[in-house]
């Protein structure tokens, strides 16, 4: 024989139903967040040139990108740092360097332009 359905019993049943629904939603949210984390992690791993999420550990080091200190004649070279390991010859070649190019450093003009002279030349600048 069931107990008579009083307002108190009805409210308790409603509360239990709401709690079960909340637990289901929490579990589904956690599962969704985990799936998204895995998906974006894989995407980020593939976005680094020359690296693969399936590659051995030594090939998955993060590539550091930084500016080279250069002499005045060779300013503005930006290159990609690589891990200190030999990469197999069959390793994929990146289509483009991971670093964005720095602004061009144009050849600089001399302090003073050449002037005509009648002095005998000490050397000849010509094709070689």
């Amino acid at each position, binding site marked *: 024989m069931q107990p008579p359905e009083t307002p108190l019993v009805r409210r308790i049943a409603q509360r239990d139903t709401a709690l079960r629904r909340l637990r289901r939603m929490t579990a589904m949210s956690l599962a969704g967040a985990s799936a998204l984390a895995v998906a974006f992690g894989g995407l980020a791993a593939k976005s680094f040139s020359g690296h693969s999420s399936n590659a051995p550990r030594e090939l998955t080091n993060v590539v550091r990108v930084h500016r080279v200190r250069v002499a005045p004649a060779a300013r503005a070279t930006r290159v990609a740092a690589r891990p200190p390991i030999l990469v197999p010859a069959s390793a994929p070649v990146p289509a483009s360097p991971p670093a964005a190019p720095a602004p061009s450093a144009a050849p600089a003009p001399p302090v003073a332009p050449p002037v005509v002279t009648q002095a005998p030349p000490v050397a000849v600048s010509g*094709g070689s």
Partner: protein
Amino acid sequence: VSASFSALGTTVTLAVVDPGALDAANAVLRHELALIDRTCSRFRADSELTCVNRAAGRQIGVSALLYDALRTGLAAARATDGIVDPTVGRALEVAGYDATFSLVRARDGQRFAARFATVPGWRTVELDDARHTVRAPQGVVLDLGATGKALAADRAARAAALGIGGDIAVHGTPPAGGWALGIGDDHGKAPDPGSTVAILAGGLATSSATVRRWRSGSRELHHLIDPRTGRPADTPWRTVSVAASTCVDANTASAAAMILGVDAPAWLAERRLPTRLVGRDGAILCLAGWPADAA
């Protein structure tokens, strides 16, 4: 006073103001050039550059000198938007420049068939400045012929005027009136009449398509490869001479001008580089303060 000798496949001329300094400067220079040759030659089986070219895509450590030379070559490529590119080595090889030029010149050109190759581009080369390593993809052959001699001149010119082929660097206190330098198609011959100019500092370089030429059947080819086509540049200029703050800059600009062709005058004027261009017909165009030839 001056001294001349052969090195790096060309003629080297050293001039100093103080006669007593010539021997010491000469010794330092020869040591430096031998080092450059052992390090940067594309034709020596034992050079560091050859090791890099044979690394087949592996990353390898290099000496400070080769690293500097590679960095200079890549900087020249960047400054010219890839017109002067160190990755033209393979294109040069298949076109016929696959050995020291004395051997190339001696070959029977009628029986040689040149081929042409796509230039992979300087952006495929990776340098690590912290570890001094370089990595070039498999199949890329680096050639430092464009900037290597100019870099050697800049490094070795100490209180002197130093000419390596057509690339001249001057450093230190100049003689009265500056260092007098002749200009011509061939650095080994007499300069063009009235072309001699004086500079006080920096570099002066000449690029020409008239000297390093070879035959492939009925065609004549030269060493200035246009990376956009993988073929010797089809240029209206016979010879281009540029003065700049360094010999590397001058060489980069003169080589770029030869390859850019009709676009060269605007490119040079925009950079305010004093330049003398000689067309195939012998007409001379002077830009950005380069003086007209003396009558």
